[in-house]
């Protein structure tokens, strides 16, 4: 068009970014790439390649190596070999390398941005203004953690070799999120990028080597799911860090169960976007654009579920539809677009089919009227209005530019609808009333809550999910700890197997008998008979019959979990209140110390002095958690914006606890106290061999004002009960201290609802060593961090 024509129409016209440099880089490699192993490109062992194409045109961009188990093996060997040297380099040395990587990204920012946009299909605006700068910030931020490592994480050691599997929606940014903390802390890495989008990872590896990163510290193996599986299964891997679908996350949890591999999962979501009547509605409409039309909606934390207060719903719909009229979809390198291409035809089909289902199930469909490019993988911004919670599109993660909307009447109902999902990744709350916004944020079961904002990220602020959106955090101090292990746990030895004890025949004489006591189960604050009404004998080491405890079964666990779920108020109790009850528990336990010592001595065969020492240690431990209850606090992060992010420590919810046989009282207290101090409710399976010390506790619990349902105790066959807990989808976390097999089973069966698990793999904890068994080392697992972003200003 001529100047005169533009003068009349005032249209934008094409504004393409040049892609010369990115194409030249591809050409330099002959558009064919090997893996990047041990500092150099390496051909795949079996010679197999696959094509990667450009979503906006469908044209093949390059040939990539298909990683086999042999390629993974070579990469792991390379990473393993150099890990000790990488660690020995020290925090400052690694800080220099990470700083160099940050600067390298900044120097080559436009090349990365253009290559990413071509490979993924997302708009250059996003890669240039968000992905690449934030990736550089991650390396800079984590250079800082490396520098501070010896001081801040002196009691922790790196895990070793990390396997990292990243998704296609933010290829380079996810690389940075994963790589920066891992390398900073002295780990080495084998990274598998997504098969659709491997190019920026290869470019990064190449330029990182040029920037001086030693060979073997970062290895990139390209490929598909099979390559990822080979990485997950490799014995030489100490941890898997995965971002991707919940479905694959479950497979990884199953595959790594019992292996001792550490695991973090950052999975899917159906994140609510809640608009109250007192919101800045135009701001919220713009928020929708940033929430669901950002990166074509292919964002795990996309605000995909619009909850709008009924009174303003129609007003909001009108504003949103008007806004959608001006959205522009176009080629990723056009600098005048809002949305680019969907990553792959497979994804496009899935989006289209889900939208069709939504319409069939009653939704009204509105799509942005702007033109789509004629070829390539494009889908218009879409609103599905008046969707019911039972509709498929309200339940499933669509992972496309599709907003699903429903209304609510009251703040309570908004919270209820927002939490009515298996997921819990993120949420966005729009209200100009500070009291309301700050009241709603803690009630949302999500790892990230944005107030009057959406899709804000920073290297210094933890990101990660609740519930089936995964576990672990990335970013900030929260994220760093995912790449470390406590030194004090490293030396743990396998627990010795206790010989079986057979009951000896012993006949009572005619002395006045003690009055019979029948220990029951303790559920919902009441002593109840076991559902099956069977009992189990409790014997001394020499076989003496000491009593009988209830033989709990799956229904008892069910009842205990229900009681624990009902005791939600405990999570909202003040920390002062929880502290007071923990101190009171200590007080009442101490008052009956002799009785407990005698019981421990009788059950375990310990000397009276040692038994007393266990009781004393248990009392002290309760005191410790009384102390921690109002002191294990979150943090205030200061990301680069006018505002704060509050990293709140929130209880996980209902936690199953299986106690080991050693130190039956102390171990139980050591595991239960941190959990309840942080507001969790527990279902405890005490030591199978020495359960009477747990049943004796009932009266202590009752006299210490522990609210009903906060601590529930089910005695019985331990591992059978652990299985029920592991399979129970209303149990949020499971701590298993005992056998290796029970640990493996707990991890394997936790996949139903992706519980957080803390297991000892059959390794013996020294319960008398406070460093190994008390304080932050366990409190860390007793909370989940929610980051509430609060931009402010007037």
């Amino acid at each position, binding site marked *: 068009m001529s100047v005169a*024509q*533009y003068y009349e129409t*005032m249209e934008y*016209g094409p*504004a393409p970014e040049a892609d010369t440099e990115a194409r030249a880089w591809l050409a330099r490699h002959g558009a064919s790439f090997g893996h990047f192993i041990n500092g150099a490109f390496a051909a795949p062992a079996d010679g197999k390649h696959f094509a990667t194409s450009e979503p906006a045109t469908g044209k093949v961009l390059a040939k990539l190596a298909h990683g086999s188990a042999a390629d993974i093996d070579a990469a792991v060997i390379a990473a393993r070999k150099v890990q000790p040297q990488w660690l020995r380099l020290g925090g400052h040395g690694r800080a220099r390398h990470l700083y160099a990587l940050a600067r390298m990204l900044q120097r080559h920012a436009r090349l990365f941005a253009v290559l990413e946009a071509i490979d993924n299909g997302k708009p250059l605006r996003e890669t240039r203004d968000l992905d690449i700068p934030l990736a550089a910030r991650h390396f800079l931020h984590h250079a800082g953690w490396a520098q501070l490592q010896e001081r801040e994480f002196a009691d922790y050691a790196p895990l070793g070799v990390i396997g990292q599997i990243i998704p296609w929606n933010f290829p380079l940014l996810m690389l940075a999120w994963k790589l920066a903390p891992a390398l900073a802390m002295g780990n080495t890495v084998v990274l598998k990028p997504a098969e659709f989008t491997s190019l920026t990872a290869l470019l990064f590896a190449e330029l990182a080597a040029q920037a001086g990163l030693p060979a073997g510290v970062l290895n990139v193996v390209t490929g598909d799911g099979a390559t990822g599986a080979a990485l997950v299964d490799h014995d030489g891997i100490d941890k898997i860090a995965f971002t991707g679908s919940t479905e694959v996350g479950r497979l990884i949890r199953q595959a790594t169960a019992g292996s001792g591999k550490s695991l973090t999962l950052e999975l899917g979501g159906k994140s609510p976007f809640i608009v109250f009547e007192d*919101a800045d509605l135009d701001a919220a409409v713009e928020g929708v654009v940033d929430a669901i039309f950002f990166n074509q909606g292919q964002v795990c934390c996309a605000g995909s579920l619009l909850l709008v207060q009924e009174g303003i719903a129609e007003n909001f719909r009108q504003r949103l539809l008007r806004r959608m009229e001006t959205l522009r979809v176009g080629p990723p390198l056009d600098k*005048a677009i809002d949305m680019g291409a969907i990553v792959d035809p497979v994804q496009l089909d899935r989006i289209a089919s889900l939208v069709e289902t939504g319409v069939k199930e009653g939704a009204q469909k509105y799509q942005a009227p702007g033109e789509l490019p004629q070829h390539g993988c494009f889908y218009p911004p879409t609103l599905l209005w008046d969707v019911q919670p039972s509709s498929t599109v309200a339940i499933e993660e669509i992972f496309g530019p599709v907003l699903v909307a429903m209304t609510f009447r009251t703040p309570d109902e908004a919270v209820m609808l927002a939490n009515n999902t298996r997921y819990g990744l993120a949420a966005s709350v729009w209200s100009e009333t500070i009291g309301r916004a700050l009241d709603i944020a803690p009630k949302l079961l999500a790892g990230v809550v944005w107030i009057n904002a959406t899709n804000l990220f920073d290297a210094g602020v933890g990101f990660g999910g609740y519930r089936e959106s995964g576990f672990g955090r990335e970013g900030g101090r929260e994220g760093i700890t995912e790449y470390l292990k406590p030194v004090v746990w490293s030396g743990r030895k396998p627990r010795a197997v206790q010989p079986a004890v057979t009951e000896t025949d012993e006949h009572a004489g005619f002395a006045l008998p003690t009055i019979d006591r029948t220990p029951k189960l303790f559920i919902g604050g009441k002593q109840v008979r076991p559902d099956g009404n069977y009992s189990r004998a409790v014997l001394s080491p020499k076989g003496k019959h000491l009593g009988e405890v209830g033989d709990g079964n799956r229904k008892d666990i069910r009842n205990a979990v229900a009681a624990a779920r009902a005791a939600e108020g405990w999570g909202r109790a003040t920390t002062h209140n929880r502290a007071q009850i923990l101190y009171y528990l200590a007080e009442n336990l101490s008052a009956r110390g002799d009785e407990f010592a005698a019981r421990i001595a009788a059950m375990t065969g310990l000397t009276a002095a040692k038994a007393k020492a266990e009781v004393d240690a248990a009392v002290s431990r309760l005191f410790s958690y009384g102390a921690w209850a109002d002191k294990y606090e979150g943090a205030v992060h200061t990301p680069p914006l006018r505002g704060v992010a509050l990293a709140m420590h929130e209880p996980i919810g209902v936690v199953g606890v299986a106690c080991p046989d050693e130190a039956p009282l102390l171990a139980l207290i050591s595991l239960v106290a941190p959990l309840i101090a942080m507001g969790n409710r527990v279902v405890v399976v005490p030591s199978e061999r020495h359960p009477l010390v747990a049943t004796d506790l009932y009266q202590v619990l009752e006299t210490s004002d522990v609210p009903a349902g906060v601590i529930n105790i089910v005695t019985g066959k331990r591992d059978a009960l652990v299985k029920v807990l592991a399979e129970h989808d209303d149990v949020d976390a499971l701590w298993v201290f005992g056998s290796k097999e029970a640990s493996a089973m707990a991890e394997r069966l936790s996949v139903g609802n992706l519980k957080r698990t803390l297991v000892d793999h059959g390794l013996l904890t020294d319960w008398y060593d406070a460093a190994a068994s008390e304080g932050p080392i366990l409190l860390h697992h007793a909370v989940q961090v929610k980051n509430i972003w609060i*931009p*402010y200003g007037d």
Partner: protein
Amino acid sequence: MSQSASIPEPSRVPLRGRERPVAIEAAAVARNAGCALELDWVDEIRINLSAAERRVASLPGRRTVKNEAQAAWLLKAITCIDLTTLNGDDTAGRVRRLCAKARQPVRADILDALGFAGRKLHTGAICVYHRFVAAAVEALDGSGIPVAAVSTGFPAGLVPHNVKLREIEASVQDGAEEIDIVITREHVLTGDWRALYQEVKDFRAACGHAHLKTILATGDLKTLRNVARASMVCMMAGADFIKTSTGKEGVNATLPVSLVMLRMIRSYQDRTGYKIGFKPAGGISTAKDVLNYQILMKEELGREWLEPSLFRIGASSLLADIERQLEHHVTGRYSAFNRHPVA
């Protein structure tokens, strides 16, 4: 020709102004008749500063114009400029020079190269103090370029109310077709919406046929919520344009302030059907700046708001930068200020 700064009596009807055609391209735009003061419309306003900032920060990444489109947009911007001089040392001679530039804002050879030979292209208006209205009207005779007068005790707006009304009438009588009034900031800062409404309503009445641009002095109002509420009240009182600044406040036009005012314009249109114009003023001095404003107008309000009937830019040095950019577009070489005639 009257250069008198004396205030005429209110009873004197500004006939001369009334007889002149309204040069503002308002044919398609029905003039805002205002409406009763609806305090609910004011009370319900919620503005989130951070969200407004994010919107304007991301917009330049979402929209841009290059090459022919950019040249066209810049030419369009010229037609929206209220070429302004508001200095203590202004003289009739200075104003005549400005008027000459308004008539011929771009070198003819550049217009030729852009395919605009023979097309009438002039700035949106000339904006001066009352004292120079008559001089400007004379200098612009036959050009169709309207003269805008800043008024009502500009820039502080603290002279007596009746004096303000007489100042407006005097400017209209001298031939001003647009009156840029300043509001009494105190009314906003104390939330006295009735007083603000009545004040602007009086100004509108005094303007008669002349268009009323209400300057909010947003730098003095401080919060976006104040800006939004003042915008809404001024429109209800009959403003034809709402304008950000006098150019004399500590902070003048900004994109977040503009965003909020545009959203209020949209909201007022939704309620009354009237389209209100917008004029950012002060601090817009580069071609890049003005493109950002144009993009904001188009995105928030639509194509219509890119025309001088609904969009004006109060600026003095902007034109010179646009001229340089246009020459660059034509020649491919970077230009210099001294290659373009001064205003």
